[in-house]
């Protein structure tokens, strides 16, 4: 496969958040709606286009989800009525991509409720697919298979041929021998967001998520202006360094060699991170020759 092979992403985002009881894709993480974070991570990992299937326009949350996705860089599909299943949303997106002059060579199938989707993980999955473009690539954590999944285009097209009551997982099961698993060091690939309990777990005290701002080489390595890490509370600057190395391998080469700022002040490794503090990686500044 040539290096010019194109990877699109499909994000089914039309669900009604029934179990959450409120529009989960508009919940904010690090100050950004979840759907925007997911789109931005896929764009940063090189997926073009990122197709988001939004709720219909008359759904209360529909316009806000569509706008957040669009502003984050997605191509947004707004169906006339709410797709009954995730598979229906995927089918709509595949049909849309199929209309293009040149359909993609693969799609990254990404649940919209991936609160800890990581650019570097998506990049690794895409890289694994490029090594052997016939295969399906799935991430695992401690043996359990997670998301997102890279599907070769031919298989994505086959979603339309599935019987009406059969989901995408059945298609993957049918092609189980093509599945290539990529072990990931973080349970982020397993984390989704369906219930208020999920949200509490994600935002709660046992494993708070922290947003870390990135600049210069750190931003370049991670492919975006911030990363989210899961971190027990209370945690110190040293704990944050370890979490960065484990959860964001692309930052591993620098995470223990840069200064860390807490609330816009340089912090020592034994400093405790206050709740809600602004965190940032500060690579050595340009200083240079005197």
């Amino acid at each position, binding site marked *: 496969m040539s290096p010019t092979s194109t990877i699109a992403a499909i994000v089914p985002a039309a669900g009604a958040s029934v179990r959450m009881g409120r529009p989960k894709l508009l919940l904010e993480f690090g100050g950004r709606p979840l759907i925007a974070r997911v789109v931005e991570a896929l764009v940063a990992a090189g997926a073009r286009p990122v197709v988001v299937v939004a709720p219909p326009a008359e759904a209360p949350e529909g316009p806000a989800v569509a706008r957040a996705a669009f502003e984050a860089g997605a191509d947004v599909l707004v169906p006339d009525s709410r797709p009954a299943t995730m598979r229906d949303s995927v089918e709509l997106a595949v049909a849309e991509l199929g209309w293009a002059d040149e359909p993609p060579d693969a799609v990254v199938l990404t649940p919209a409720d991936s609160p800890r989707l990581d650019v570097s993980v998506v990049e690794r999955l895409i890289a694994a697919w490029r090594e052997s473009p016939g295969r399906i690539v799935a991430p695992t954590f401690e043996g359990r298979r997670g998301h997102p999944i890279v599907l070769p285009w031919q298989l994505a097209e086959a979603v339309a041929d599935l019987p009406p009551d059969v989901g995408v997982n059945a298609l993957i099961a049918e092609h189980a021998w093509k599945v290539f698993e990529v072990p990931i060091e973080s349970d982020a690939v397993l984390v989704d967001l369906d219930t208020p309990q999920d949200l509490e777990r994600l935002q709660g005290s046992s494993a708070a998520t922290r947003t870390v701002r990135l600049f*210069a*080489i750190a931003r*370049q390595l991670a492919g975006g202006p911030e990363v989210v890490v899961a971190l027990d509370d209370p945690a110190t600057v040293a704990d944050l360094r370890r979490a960065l190395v484990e959860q964001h391998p692309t930052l591993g080469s620098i995470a223990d060699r840069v200064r860390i*700022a807490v609330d816009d002040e340089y912090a020592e490794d034994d400093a405790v991170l206050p709740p809600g503090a602004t965190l940032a990686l500060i690579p050595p*500044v340009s200083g240079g020759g005197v």
Partner: protein
Amino acid sequence: MVEITESPLDHAAITERVRHVNAGAVCTFLGTVREMTGDRRTVALEYEAYPEMAAKKLAELEAEARRRWPLIEVALAHRVGRLELGDVSVVVAVSCPHRGDSFEACRWLIDTLKDVVPIWKRENWADGREEWVHPGLE
């Protein structure tokens, strides 16, 4: 006075701003975009700031310098974004009653600024390569 801006720095105006009738000395330092680093040729530089923290650190530097020297006026201005060869990237201007203090304060301010203020530069080399400059991280 501290400032982080994407606009060109008017060093004459900044110097004028620190002039004062009680000052017997005004010292201005300019950092400018250099073309040659050893035998490597620079085409342009891009500066990126962590704006909130950089503004805070600049203000702290001004306060610390005022503690150490009898400064009358202080101006610290840093430009961010893309800069062409010869452009002014940073201006430090101080006024004092006597010249010795003005040289010392100006020197301390620029040296410390380059060490603690989170503003980074990316080299655009003539060979097409681009790289962030992070002393000690190479």
